């Protein structure tokens, strides 16, 4: 029983941390971020299983996490009002070539990062951008004019 409770608590801690850190940081992973993520995973595993080395324990934790994932996606699907909280919302960064600085600040994205993202999508200048949108998965979609 304690395994299930610890799994639930850790699941929601991970959920809160990923929502708080921001989608951009999680999608553009630098080596430091990657190492931090691995360390976090290891610490979370210790918090859940502690000294438990058993298969039954592992099965319980995996099943609990899987059920919570299904439950969360079901809640997000059934309750559209909760969707922005659970999944986040797309955020417009550039509209008709104009940078929306407030949204950039909100997600801690610099103009240089935005320009780099545009270049990677074969767009030479922000003047050629109709919309640049930060998607809920942390990627930036660029729609040219």
């Amino acid at each position, binding site marked *: *029983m*304690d*395994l299930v409770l610890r799994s639930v608590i850790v699941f929601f801690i991970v959920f809160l941390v990923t929502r708080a850190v921001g989608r951009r940081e999680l999608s553009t992973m630098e080596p430091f971020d990657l190492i931090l993520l691995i360390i976090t995973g290891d610490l979370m595993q210790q918090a859940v299983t*502690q000294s*438990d*080395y*058993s298969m039954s*324990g592992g099965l*319980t934790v995996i099943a*609990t996490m899987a059920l919570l994932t299904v439950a969360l996606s079901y809640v997000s699907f059934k309750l559209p009002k909760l969707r922005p909280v659970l999944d986040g919302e797309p955020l417009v960064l550039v509209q008709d070539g104009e940078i929306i600085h407030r949204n950039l600040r909100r997600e801690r994205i610099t103009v240089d990062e935005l320009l780099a993202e545009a270049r990677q999508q074969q767009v030479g200048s922000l003047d050629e951008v109709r919309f640049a949108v930060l998607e809920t998965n942390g990627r930036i979609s660029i729609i040219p004019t």
Partner: protein
Amino acid sequence: MRDLRGRSRRPWIRRGLVVLIAVPVVLALTGAFGQPTKTLRAASAAATLQVEVPDKLRGGLMWRARIVVRATSTIEHPRIVLGPGWVHGMQLNTIEPAPESEASRGPRVVLSYGELAAGDELVVDLQLQVDPTTVGRQDTSVDLDDEARPLARVAHTTRVLP
């Protein structure tokens, strides 16, 4: 149409799998995978013996047990005799209070304590850890003797799950 044949069943297969995934979670919540502690009692004219021990454990788990002896008449040489499952395949980390002496009786461990007068209570706490490779039934019975004279016995088996 040929490519879509049989696909209508797929959501139901997936839903069935989700229900299947829920089974171990429900079992774990009901304590089927351990480690709720159970209290067992035995009594004789000389003493009562109470043992708090889990029925089910898992490999690697740390766990605790408590043995309580209440003397109803004087026990000159109280001996707590632990079944082989307390030490075989387990790490016995702590016994508090430590016994005056320890001995073996075959695969059993005998813990000797000082005299108990009528009305005295001896509480022994044990802290243990299951060896990760241990699986199966462990004899975690406890006997209370006055030197070699049996006074009370709590028979118990703990199942270690893989």
